């Protein structure tokens, strides 16, 4: 492999964020238009779709996936993939819930759960960055390992009896919006700023865009990757804690197939699995597209098999439009 001149590497690293913002605003607008079209169709077919309660419902239902997908987007932009988000969430959920049930303070239990998520994520990152293993394989392995840990820890049984004090934390509303929706809104702002305005964001784009060039221009590759996976684990844990609060129980089987939903949201939102491309706003819109689809199709009483079909078609359609508007690169 030939080594690119170092000036090109420096260019990639410094220019990536501004280029990304310019281009992806248009891409995000595309996702937004798609969402509006989907909503318009459902609004015509069902008279409850556009009610305030239903729209809030869609946001609430999309909030778990949104939370996971924000972390997933960071990892995808860095050129990786995180298949272990569901089991990481399960580990965080069962730990936080067991602390809560044994009477530990709410804040401490939440922090412990989040810490477990970040540590699991960082573990993925270390294996990928230092051992040089492929992200797909590493997280496929940890997908089993973390799921097993959650099952072993609980003996396969759900942890019931989470205190209502903790449940109400996330069951309350701020104006008309449930707390989980507000949490996700804050995450969108923080995540977007982090990607566009901080060195870490710059590094993530650089590593995913051209790792060799980034290395030459002095980007700390290993630490950047570990940070991306740790954030993904942290956000999966946060999603888990929100879900435990909503369900009032933590199950070791929690988080099944979250990785696929999160990857779908990222992809619809314009993240490229080749790395170097993606946006938080786009991902959130992608998650809401998926949530709105599920909601609208249920309101129209469309049977499960056709809902699955529709979801698949939307993903492929989004990718085709993406390819046509963006051109082959």
């Amino acid at each position: 492999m030939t080594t690119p001149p170092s000036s090109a590497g420096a260019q990639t690293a410094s220019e990536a964020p501004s280029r990304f913002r310019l281009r992806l605003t248009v891409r995000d607008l595309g996702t937004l238009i798609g969402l509006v079209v989907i909503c318009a169709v459902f609004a015509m077919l069902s008279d409850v779709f556009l009610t305030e309660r239903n729209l809030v419902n869609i946001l609430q239902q999309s909030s778990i996936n949104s939370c996971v997908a924000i972390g997933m987007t960071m990892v995808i932009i860095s050129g990786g993939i995180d298949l272990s988000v569901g089991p990481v969430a399960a580990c965080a959920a069962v730990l936080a819930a067991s602390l809560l049930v044994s009477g530990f303070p709410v804040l401490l239990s939440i922090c412990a759960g989040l810490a477990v998520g970040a540590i699991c994520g960082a573990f993925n990152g270390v294996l990928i960055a230092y051992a040089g293993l492929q992200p797909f394989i590493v997280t496929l392995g940890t997908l089993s390992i973390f799921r097993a840990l959650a099952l072993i820890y609980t003996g396969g049984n759900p942890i019931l009896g989470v205190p209502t004090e903790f449940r109400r934390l996330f069951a309350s509303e701020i104006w008309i919006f449930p707390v989980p929706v507000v949490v996700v809104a804050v995450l969108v702002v923080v995540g977007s700023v982090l990607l566009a305005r901080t060195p870490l964001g710059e590094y993530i784009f650089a590593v995913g865009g051209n790792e060799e060039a980034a290395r030459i221009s002095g980007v700390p590759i290993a630490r950047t990757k570990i940070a991306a996976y740790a954030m993904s684990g942290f956000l999966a844990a946060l999603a888990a804690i929100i879900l435990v609060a909503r369900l009032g129980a933590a199950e070791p089987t929690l988080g099944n197939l979250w990785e696929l939903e999160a990857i779908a949201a990222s992809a619809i939102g314009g993240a490229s699995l080749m790395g170097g491309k993606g946006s938080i706003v786009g991902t959130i819109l992608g998650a809401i597209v998926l949530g709105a689809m599920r909601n609208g199709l249920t309101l129209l009483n469309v049977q499960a098999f056709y809902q699955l079909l529709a979801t698949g078609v939307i993903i492929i359609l989004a990718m085709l439009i993406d390819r046509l508007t963006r051109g082959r690169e």
Partner: protein
Amino acid sequence: MKVKFVKSAIMGVSLASLLALAAHADALKPLNSDTEPDRIDWSQLDAKFGPLPKAEGKLKVGAVAKALNNEYWRSLGQGYANEAKAAGVTVDLQAGQGEADQLGQLAIAENMITKGYNILLVSPQTDANLTPAVEAAEKAGVPVVNVNDAVIPGAKNYVGNVQKDNGVRAARWFIKNRPAGGKVAVVEGMAGVYAAVQRTAGFKETLAKEGPGFTVVASVPGNWDRQLSYDVATNIIQKNPDIVGFYANNDGMALGIVEAVKAAGKLKDIAVIGTDGISDAYKSIKDGELIATVDSFPVLTGEVALETALRLKAGQKLPRVVATPQALVTKDNVDRYTGDEAKVRKNLMEDAAAK
């Protein structure tokens, strides 16, 4: 974000203390559908509460099944449809996209409440995944009936069979028909699922108590999966060539085991018993391959579930659990439990009376 988080935490706690004043005490104890004392057998409903009251106006019933890729849940839906037709109400059936689509099923249940159904029949994927929807429905004054087999701890009404009994019946077959005893194995459903835990426990406890000649050499998860159960059974047979029987927590797994037994050429020596009574299982029983299944009559269960919901909607105070029937079906009595729905219902009514 931390600051915001702490802020919302403080806000939540202060809001919560306000709410605590308004909220009513939740005195309902967590449901254990097998042992709940407040119960009634399905066959007693008419006798104790009279014929089903006529539904007022046009009632819309929403049903959320586990997943439609398992015949059991489609049959349950058929039962809903039958009863709806008889009672003059409409029923819409929705389901998760697979038996592990927990959040998807929750979203579906919530969306159905938004749409404004008068009654909700739910078969949750896990004990907890539909909790928010059930709470929302109760807040909206919509009666919710938990139908087989995961048990929502806070469920006010449950319709389903006694899960433990499935295992008990299978064990008694072995005790009666294999008096010499021997090695047996259990292939369990998904780890931690109520139905799987209870069925397995019923089987093991009964053998331990009533069948001293038997040893359970393995009890391993087959995750409701036919292929996995085939592999598991193959390994168990290899290790214990003298094994005399298998009990599987559902029919799909039992049929996988039957294939493994056939492949090992031991169909004559190893008896396999399943649970559920799906049509493939019946076919296999008639062909003399599967020895028996513990049928829990999903169509009838669906009918009883909707009947229960309609009675609740009409204001009747029913016991918390309505128990639905089950029977061990073998080649000898298969005709009694198949074919015309009305005939099966009559036979089951007779079984209940004979108890």
